[in-house]
């Protein structure tokens, strides 16, 4: 392993408050996170010459903050958009398009203040081919392959529930987490059935919040107030805008392809990874992710999580903020994956894992629509 840094994250911050924040519109959540991330980088808004955002357009965010950027990225591929923005930002900076790119997320997912409508238009693809069958948002669609996965791999309901149990062990140490009480598999089974086979505690929380990043060149990154987090590898991929059209309901093609790109670019293998974040809108996603990224073999992820390998003290600390299931989930959660990877690499996480030098953040967008993967490291990882 001898990765080369492609760029650096020099500023990272979440909104001051997470959870239920009805006094801030979605755009104000972008702005709050942006100001805090720019300050974290030791910069001012006048230093920002690139803006990337999803949910709101980068022009809306830039105008709101009084920035006149020379680089705009409005890539919108769902909750992994922000990881893709990091990928594009390091390329743009290397090409001389910008020096300091601000990436923002803000979403009033719970309070719906200044938020766009959620129901798809009847003439959209989803409106024509999925909505007529009584879907009610992601809980009735995203886990569509779970029963097939169980039939083909032997994954058990107990193992699926153990994902929520493991992540609550992490969030019990995280003061900002929405849910912090330890739970058992029996607690998961006793929670209301939302859409069989998914219980309430196997579905993400719904919150308000935001986060922002400042991405810059490697040169000068070490002079900023916080230790730089180096971008060592990046990947993006897509599969389908309609979950009903997945090629294989037991695998995510976008997880596989995006992580292969990122791991190859960073010249790492799974054994090099100290810390892992896998987007968990629902409990099945870390199971798919562990297998699609190659951390475990086919059909092994359920037992791997159930046995505690991803829990505190385990060999592969995963979703150490508690994840979308317990920490926060505004709707497009991917920003929070990167925030936790940055905190772990800086050594400032609430549930800090000892000796994290290399972290992987794997995001998903839509419902297995797209994916973005980042391999991030400290200066110790540079070849």
């Amino acid at each position, binding site marked *: 392993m001898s990765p080369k840094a492609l760029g650096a994250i020099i500023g990272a911050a979440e909104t001051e408050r997470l959870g239920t924040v009805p006094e801030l519109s979605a755009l104000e959540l972008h702005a709050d996170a942006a100001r805090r991330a720019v300050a974290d980088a030791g910069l001012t808004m006048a230093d920002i010459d690139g803006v990337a955002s999803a949910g709101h357009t980068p022009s809306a965010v830039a105008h709101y903050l009084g920035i006149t950027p020379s680089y705009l990225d409005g890539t919108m591929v769902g909750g992994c958009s922000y990881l893709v923005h990091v990928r594009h930002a390091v390329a743009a900076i290397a090409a001389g398009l910008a020096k300091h790119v601000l990436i923002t997320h803000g979403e009033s997912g719970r309070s719906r203040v200044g938020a766009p409508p959620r129901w798809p238009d009847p003439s959209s693809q989803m409106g024509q081919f999925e909505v007529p069958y009584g879907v009610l948002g992601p809980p009735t669609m995203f886990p569509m392959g779970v029963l097939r996965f169980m039939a083909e791999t032997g994954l058990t309901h107990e193992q699926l529930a153990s994902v929520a149990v493991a992540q609550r062990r992490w969030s019990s140490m995280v003061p900002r987490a929405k849910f912090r009480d330890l739970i058992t598999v029996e607690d998961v089974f006793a929670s209301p059935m939302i859409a069989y*086979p998914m219980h309430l505690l196997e579905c993400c929380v719904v919150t308000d919040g935001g986060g922002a990043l400042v991405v810059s060149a490697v040169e000068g990154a070490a002079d900023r107030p916080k230790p730089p987090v180096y971008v060592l590898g990046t990947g993006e991929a897509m599969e389908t805008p309609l979950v009903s059209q997945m090629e294989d309901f037991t695998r995510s093609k976008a997880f596989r392809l995006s992580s292969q790109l990122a791991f190859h670019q960073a010249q790492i293998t799974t054994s090099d990874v100290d810390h892992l974040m896998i987007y968990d809108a629902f409990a099945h996603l870390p199971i798919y992710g562990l297998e699609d990224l190659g951390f475990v073999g086919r059909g092994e992820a359920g037992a791997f999580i159930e046995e505690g390998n991803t829990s505190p003290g385990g060999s592969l600390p995963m979703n150490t903020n508690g994840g979308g299931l317990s920490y926060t989930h505004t709707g497009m959660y991917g920003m929070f994956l990167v925030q936790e990877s940055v905190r772990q690499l800086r050594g400032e996480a609430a549930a800090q894992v000892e000796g994290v030098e290399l972290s992987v953040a794997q995001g998903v967008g839509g419902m297995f629509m797209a994916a973005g993967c980042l391999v991030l490291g400290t200066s110790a990882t540079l070849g």
Partner: protein
Amino acid sequence: MSSSAAKPAPRPTPDTAPYFEATKRGELCIQRCQRCERAYFYPRSSCPACGSTDVVWFTTSGRARLHTYMLSYRAAPGFEDQVPYAIAIVELAEGPRLMTNIVGIPNTPEHLVLDMELEVDFEPRGEEMVPVFRPLGVTS
């Protein structure tokens, strides 16, 4: 009983109109590529496998297998009397898969067996008709 017509209705677009014209005739029609001979769904003007625009509509056999499903415990509009109801993916005998509902049997894990054989039926959604599936040999 729920009123199927009160359930969310699709609004066809020019590219999907032949599909919804066929469902009104009681036929499940999809497209096939003339170059690579692959059948595909959803409707579009070129083959997703080879890119050819030489594509034709054809009437499927209406036979399918249950590929996977979820049971919604909350009701979408028009589904109030059916909770929990299956939102399913079926694999057509011709290959493509689509989302649908399962009718003619109780929507429970005991009755919904993966890979069970199904055949197409149709239900109204507003002014349109959409394909749903029932176990093979179970009449309405």
